[in-house]
């Protein structure tokens, strides 16, 4: 416990977290500080490329574990299953309508890649090994939750089921972040250590610094979002935004246990299960469930769950995973 606290404290005063806080404070104070959209997108492309490549190169180095397939299947099941839990929980805790609940549920079944990135940073800084293919698990978890949410809506017979056309399936599966993550993972795997050596000064050395600026931007966006949301997100929903990641992380822990991941891998699977999408799923929701209110799902995902995971969740999951998932790497 003392361990968790000290970990949390170290974590809280890391440049990464403080950059997020800076952005949040600046936005709430109505500063005009903004990072251009193109630069924010450029940084997210950089982070996806770097994390995918490093994961792939890690797999090339450590060989493909027997648990690779099992991990991906577990990730798939988690992403499909978590929306049902989220949907039920929202029913119990809030007065949101079916569409809004389903849309939020899709976000929590899917993942936030920057939360994942932050977790790998924490692991690295503590010298905890994690499986390179956890990146592939992240990619696998992006989309299935959307299908679960749409299925929930279809079953509920709610009007406004949106246009679940063929185009949407392609968009969801070939969404830029999935393609970039999987693609760079494969490139990393194919070119291995040697490839990594060529581009390490680009994708490893400055990584933490770029992450700081990216989190500064996320803080700005989250802060502006919170300012615009005028009371649409009630206290019940806010509690959900903290409870759901904890529940998700327990499922992630159980899955990691069953699959036989290393402590580091378990911490990452917990983080993935606990995190909520804010890039891919919002775009899909605008097409598929246009009547669901963005102010609700974005506020919960970006304004509540993301900072919670960043500040408290990640150190907690890491501590739990290293304590419970024994065994040397």
């Amino acid at each position: 416990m003392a361990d968790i606290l000290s970990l949390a404290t170290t974590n809280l005063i890391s440049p990464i977290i403080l950059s997020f806080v800076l952005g949040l404070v600046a936005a709430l104070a109505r500063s005009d500080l903004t990072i251009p959209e193109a630069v924010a997108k450029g940084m997210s492309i950089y982070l996806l490329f770097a994390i995918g490549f490093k994961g792939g190169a890690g797999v090339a180095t450590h060989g493909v574990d027997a648990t690779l397939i099992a991990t991906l299947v577990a990730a798939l099941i988690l992403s499909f299953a978590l929306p049902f839990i989220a949907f039920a929980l929202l029913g119990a805790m809030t007065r949101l309508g079916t569409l809004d609940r389903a849309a939020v549920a899709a976000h929590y079944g899917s993942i936030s890649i920057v939360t994942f990135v932050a977790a790998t940073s924490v692991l690295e800084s503590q010298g905890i090994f994690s499986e390179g293919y956890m990146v592939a698990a992240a990619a696998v978890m992006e989309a299935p939750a959307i299908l679960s949410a749409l299925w929930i809506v279809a079953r509920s017979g709610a009007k406004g089921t949106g246009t679940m056309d063929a185009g949407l399936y392609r968009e969801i599966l070939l969404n830029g972040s999935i393609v970039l993550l999987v693609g760079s993972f494969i490139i990393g795997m194919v070119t291995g250590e040697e490839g990594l050596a060529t581009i390490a000064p680009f994708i490893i050395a400055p990584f933490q610094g770029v992450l700081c600026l990216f989190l500064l931007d996320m803080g700005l966006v989250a802060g502006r979002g919170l300012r615009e949301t005028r009371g649409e997100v009630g206290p019940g929903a806010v509690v959900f935004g903290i409870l759901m990641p904890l529940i998700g992380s327990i499922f992630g822990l159980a899955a990691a246990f069953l699959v036989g991941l290393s402590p580091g891998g378990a911490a990452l699977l917990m983080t993935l299960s606990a995190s909520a999408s804010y890039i891919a799923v919002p775009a899909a929701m605008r097409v598929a469930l246009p009547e669901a209110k963005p102010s609700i799902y974005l506020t919960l995902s970006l304004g509540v769950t993301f900072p919670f995971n960043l500040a408290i969740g990640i150190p907690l999951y890491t501590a739990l995973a290293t304590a419970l998932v024994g065994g040397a790497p």
Partner: protein
Amino acid sequence: MKTHQAKRVEIIIEEPLAGRLTDALIEAGVTGYTILPVKGGSGRSGRWSRAGQVSRGSGMVAVVCLIKPERLDTLLDAAFSVVEKHIGVVSITDAHVLRAERF
């Protein structure tokens, strides 16, 4: 200089739907359109800005389409089928164009 009657249709629509809208326009026989970026705005669903956004989910674009007046109704039907349930604004202005053979 000789000009010809036309309609200028401007559709402000969520970016994730822009592809569907332009496909529908092309299907409705529109010969061309132009997409302008949008920085931000405000409406019944609140105020928004593209600044610092990574997701394509939040944000709109403006699709401008010049057409022969007689094609307006087909275009509006096509546009409406996409915009209907979504956030978006459609406006039509009387215009004149050079080189009518293009529209």
